[in-house]
């Protein structure tokens, strides 16, 4: 699936998809949900929420 096709499927511009991929933009909950439906994964997995939480906790300890 190309970035254009994905962008069309979730009704955003391809620039938004590129920004999400590069970690420059955090998608809204609804967009994250749409993406998770397309890739057939959970939102937690898609956004690596568990890893991010661990990272935040580690950052807080330091």
């Amino acid at each position, binding site marked *: 699936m190309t970035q254009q096709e994905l*962008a069309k499927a979730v*009704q*955003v*511009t391809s*620039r*938004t998809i590129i*920004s999400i991929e590069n970690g420059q*933009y955090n*998608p*809204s909950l609804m*967009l994250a949900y749409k993406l998770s439906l397309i890739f057939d994964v959970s939102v937690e997995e898609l956004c690596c929420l568990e890893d991010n939480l661990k990272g935040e906790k580690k950052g807080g300890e330091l």
Partner: protein
Amino acid sequence: MKIYSKKNFFMCLVCISMIVVGITRSFSRDITVFNLLNILASITLIGYLIYGIKRSMSKKDHDEDVIEEMDERNRYVKEKSRQMSFLIIENTFGIMAITCILLTAVFGNQYLIISGLIFFLLWAFSLVVNFFTFLYYDKN
């Protein structure tokens, strides 16, 4: 032939008719360099507006425009840029007001007092607007 974006289509038509009236008025006056430049700019603008009309009649282009408008990142960028431009303007008014007051103390020029007062009022106005918009969004 179907018009997908009626708003854009009619806006372009109104603008084109206004420009055509402007061009005909320019021709009725003496031909000067300013008039010629005006006509040239108007013709360029008409070309752009015709492109707008063409876009409003194409389903694909219309869909693209809707996605561009509704895209959450675009909206976020727009909001952030507006916020930053407001902040810059607000701070500029404040800095200019203080600078004018300081210069008045040094040179004692009455025009500096007036301009300082104007900048101070604009700064105060932007602060008041900021305060009320904050109250509104805090409530809703």
